């Protein structure tokens, strides 16, 4: 991987029907443009993974792209519900959405195990919660030294992870900073990784807390300035909090959602 490729080409090549796809970004750097491209290309039957589904998955779920969802917090932060997610789970519109549900600590560790190519991770968590009833993804292990029983989560290894970053260099290495969330782990856990970036530079600046991903763990880099709107890229854009508010009204109703989709060239791809 060296030269940036157009986003449409990256998605066409690396995201397939039925894939397990993680689009990550914790409030910050959410790869909205890539998500929309996935929908525009009509991908179906995806298993979507994301700690915080946020508007980006509310849109994909409403468009019928996903059959399953792996997540840990499905709200519009500071605003309220994700209405398309709720409609899919509660009313199976546009179709049934199977849910695999973690806590943040659990899903973060599932990615971490995936990045290490370990089958599971151990954590202090879940004990006594009803989330533990999902025995296929949450279980327990006993410490061989102390006998203490701890939670175990099954590793998550997406077929493809998509993230947005501030920068790529001429060799296709990628740099992101600010709130870097679980992106490093999500990329390293995946079989393939696509990164959209704000711009390409000759030399990376110094940034405390930055994550750098070498080109050889990435499948494609695409230059998509502001590809994270209405989320933001620190030092490049600010979060469009108004759109997050507006989304509540847009998404509350199927009709207004479909009108928004049509207006944004996002056709419903599903067997609604």
């Amino acid at each position, binding site marked *: 991987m060296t030269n940036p490729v157009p986003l449409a080409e990256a998605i066409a090549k690396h995201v397939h029907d039925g894939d397990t796809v993680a689009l990550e970004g914790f409030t910050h750097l959410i790869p909205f443009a890539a998500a929309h491209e996935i929908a525009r290309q009509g991908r179906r039957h995806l298993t979507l993974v994301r700690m915080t589904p946020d508007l980006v998955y509310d849109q994909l779920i409403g468009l019928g792209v996903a059959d399953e969802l792996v997540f840990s917090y499905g709200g519009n932060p500071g605003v309220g*519900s994700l209405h398309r997610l709720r409609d899919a789970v509660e009313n199976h519109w546009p179709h049934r959405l199977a849910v695999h549900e973690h*806590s943040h600590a659990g899903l973060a560790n599932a990615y971490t195990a995936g990045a290490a190519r370990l089958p599971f991770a151990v954590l202090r968590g879940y004990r006594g919660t009803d989330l533990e009833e999902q025995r296929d993804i949450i279980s327990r292990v006993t410490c061989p030294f102390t006998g203490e029983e701890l939670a175990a989560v099954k590793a998550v290894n997406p077929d493809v992870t998509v993230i947005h970053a501030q920068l790529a260099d001429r060799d296709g290495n990628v740099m992101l900073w600010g709130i870097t*969330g679980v992106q490093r782990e999500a990329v390293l856990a995946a079989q393939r990784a696509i990164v959209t970036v704000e711009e390409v530079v000759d030399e990376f600046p110094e940034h405390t807390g930055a994550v750098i991903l070498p080109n050889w763990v990435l499948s494609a880099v695409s230059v998509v300035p502001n590809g994270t709107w209405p989320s933001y890229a620190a030092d490049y854009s600010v979060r469009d909090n108004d759109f997050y508010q507006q989304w509540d009204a847009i998404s509350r109703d199927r009709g207004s959602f479909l009108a928004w989709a049509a207006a944004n060239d996002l056709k419903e791809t599903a067997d609604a």
Partner: protein
Amino acid sequence: MPEWTSADMMNVAAARELSDGDVCLVGVGPPNLAANLARRTHAPNCRLVYESGAIDAKPRRLPLSIGDDDLAATATAVVSVPEMFNFWVGAGRIDVGFLGAAQIDRYGNINTTVIGDHADPKVRLPGAGGAPEIAAAAGRVIVIVKQSPRTFVEKVDFVSSVGYGPTGQERDGRGAGPTLVITDYGVLEPDPETHELTLTRLHEGVTVEEARAATGWDLKVADSVRVVPPPTDIELEELRRLRNREPADA
């Protein structure tokens, strides 16, 4: 004299529970307001940790989400989300965790996941997020939640976060659990032995009967119920400024 609402009082009462120097894990909504209010009033050195990875964030304006750039830009350090949960939350480095609830039972067990069955819910709620591990590992947990019979229920539909367990005796978290539940009616505290949430304080102008009526179980009431002092002018002013996303009144 300024007017104030029961929601103001809830946030102010929560803010007052933070001490200077406390390491506080802050979530969206009322906890965010309460923790930032504490920092602007009596606890300027209260340490705000956001699960997005910001440690010692010093937001200049009220963050609208836990991933605001202002949090990263003003934090002493920003760590990855796995590190936050493993090395900071799970390791027990948080003194105070604030939680919300869609349902809470008399033993402080919290539901934020579903109303109805998990596989086919009547209402799909946002889910657990960071709460299960905060509930287990924080030194103490403060729940901030508006009181109503729909929220304060005999039995939660789904245990997202454990307080003291189904009978009040099953807690195996490392922290003390939900030591305070702050509502728009008053304050509930767990009985030291049974861990049953007990009304110990009322906000000014609220009666025990009103609190009982807002509770879906037969609410236990302490022998002497104190009245929470109403918000001060300074508290109300900073609360207003926070809500308007203004900087602190220097």
